[in-house]
């Protein structure tokens, strides 16, 4: 099973966000990091894959099957998308929110199995102590942990995470990335994570997708993509990579001051 996209164009009014772009086969059990500067089209690409936006042209396919042929519901059963933000002013507990994903929006009755599954997910995500907390009372980081937990509760073939670590402290960043990578491996699913932190991308991803100005610029193993001159051009900074103290790939960025 692989995920690929060809010729995607998305336009909002006069503004073109994705320009006739696509990516080659992403494999099962692999975690891909989608990297690129602000407003490059990362969220739009995710929404297009999830089917929340209809592209003006192009296709997204899982193992050769065009996802556009599936209904909205069937498509979302195969593709699980975690949006970047959720409004958290509702009077719902963290348990309710994860239960909602466990129930896949169907069936009034909640069985003990459902409750146990939700409790296990909460515990494994390290947010068991927040189960009864109201989602409106959570800090930004806690809300993000809940959001990741909710997404991982669902069963899907493809998981898309839009910046799951942007509000987290160091330890939680590493924990969440480990959890996502393990889940993708264990479920033999296809995972894409949009990240701003290139070091996290280098350490956790098996594969990188570089997007800039609405086009996928490069695709490949982290070491290759990160040393490609395209990445410096896309981010408009100079990028150097080095080996870290534990043989991990470290990425360093420098702003080049022009002589003028």
């Amino acid at each position, binding site marked *: 099973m692989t995920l690929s996209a060809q010729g995607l164009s998305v336009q909002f009014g006069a503004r073109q966000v994705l320009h006739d772009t696509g990516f080659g086969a992403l494999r099962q059990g692999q975690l891909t990091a989608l990297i690129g500067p602000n407003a490059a089209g990362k969220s739009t690409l995710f929404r297009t894959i999830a089917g929340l936006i209809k592209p003006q042209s192009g296709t997204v396919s899982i193992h050769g099957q065009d996802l556009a042929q599936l209904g909205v519901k069937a498509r*979302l059963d195969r593709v699980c998308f975690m*949006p970047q933000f959720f409004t958290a002013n*509702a*009077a*719902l507990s963290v348990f309710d929110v994860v239960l909602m994903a466990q129930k896949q929006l169907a069936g*009034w009755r909640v069985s003990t199995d459902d409750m146990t599954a939700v409790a296990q997910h909460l515990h494994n995500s390290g947010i*068991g102590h927040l*189960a009864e907390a109201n989602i*409106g009372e959570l800090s930004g980081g806690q809300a993000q942990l809940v959001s990741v937990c909710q997404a991982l509760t*669902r069963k899907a073939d493809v998981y898309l995470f839009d910046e799951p670590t942007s509000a987290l402290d160091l330890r939680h960043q590493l924990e969440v990335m480990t959890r996502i990578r393990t889940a993708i491996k264990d479920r033999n699913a296809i995972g894409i994570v949009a990240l701003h932190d290139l070091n996290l991308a280098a350490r956790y991803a098996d594969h990188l997708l570089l997007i800039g100005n609405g086009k996928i610029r490069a695709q490949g193993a982290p070491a290759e993509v990160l040393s490609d001159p395209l990445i410096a051009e896309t981010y408009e900074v100079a990028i150097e990579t080095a080996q870290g103290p534990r043989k991990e790939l470290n990425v360093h960025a420098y702003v080049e001051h022009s002589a003028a």
Partner: protein
Amino acid sequence: MVDLSSDQDVAVSALVHGYKSRNARRAALLLAVLAALCLLVIVDVMTGPARLSFADVLSVLFNPSAATAQQKVIIWDLRLPIALMALCIGAMLGIAGAGMQTILNNPLADPFTLGLSSAASFGAALAISLQWSLIPGAGVYFITGNAFVMAMLTSLALYGFTRLRGVTPEAMILVGIAMLFTFNALLALLQYGASELELAQIVFWQLGSLARASWGKVLTCVVVLAIVLPYFMSQTWSLTALRMGEEKAASLGVNVSVLRLTVLAGVSLLAAVAVSFVGAVAFVGLVGPHIARIVVGEDQRGFLPLSAFAGALIMAGTSIASKAITPGVIYPIGMITSLIGIPFFISLILSQRQRHWQ
């Protein structure tokens, strides 16, 4: 390793236990409110010019053959339809408010603020002052019929607005408020040209009254509830998901625009029927859901029933108060819901710590 997994088991079962006990508490609360509602119906039937004791009411209700003819008429023909009507209208307005607040993501949404009530008042005024009937052959029900038609037309207009591209829930509320002022102005125009007698009738209609209750109307309310409620119940998770934001709901598989439209249709039917039967009763549709939200939160499996019960509780209390304040006088219910309900509501808001709308 073994210790670790048993640690996990303990933590997991504690979480499950916590959720179960919260569920049990919620179920017990709903049952208690239901019992309180039954009690209020009996008290409602007891209250009125002809004094009846609790025992009298029970015996007439459960053993009609033993009652005197006079008691039977008072209870079965006069007071019971009013008491049941109060429950039904309260439940309908509570559910309508809950649905509107959820799909429009706005704490101020209710049949009143979206202009449905003033549209209904305008329809009734058309009937009273100009003798126009919007439904041919409506006969004696032409005032109710007009109110219903105007309320439904207004929600059709709102429905039309949601179909326009780029109309946000916030814009919908503004459109509703625009409707409210439009119909109030039109109503004022009709009142200006009306005779004294007609004016009194229009004002009386607007203030709201349960005195127009009948078994036929109670049955209509029950039928409407029986049509709308099962649909709302089938959408509970989707509605709960919608409260986390449109994108989150959509990513969980909710077809947001279809859900908004169908729930708006159901809500309009509930509100139009309720308002055309008893007049413009403010406050119930707004406050019922807020009470439910404060007490059980917004998991719709608890929120929806409790919104209905809270609405019914307010209306039943209002019905009793309207008769009990001055013996022999029946006050308009619209006034009472506002005057008695608002202090209670404000104290509830001040006593709660969490703010669910920021």
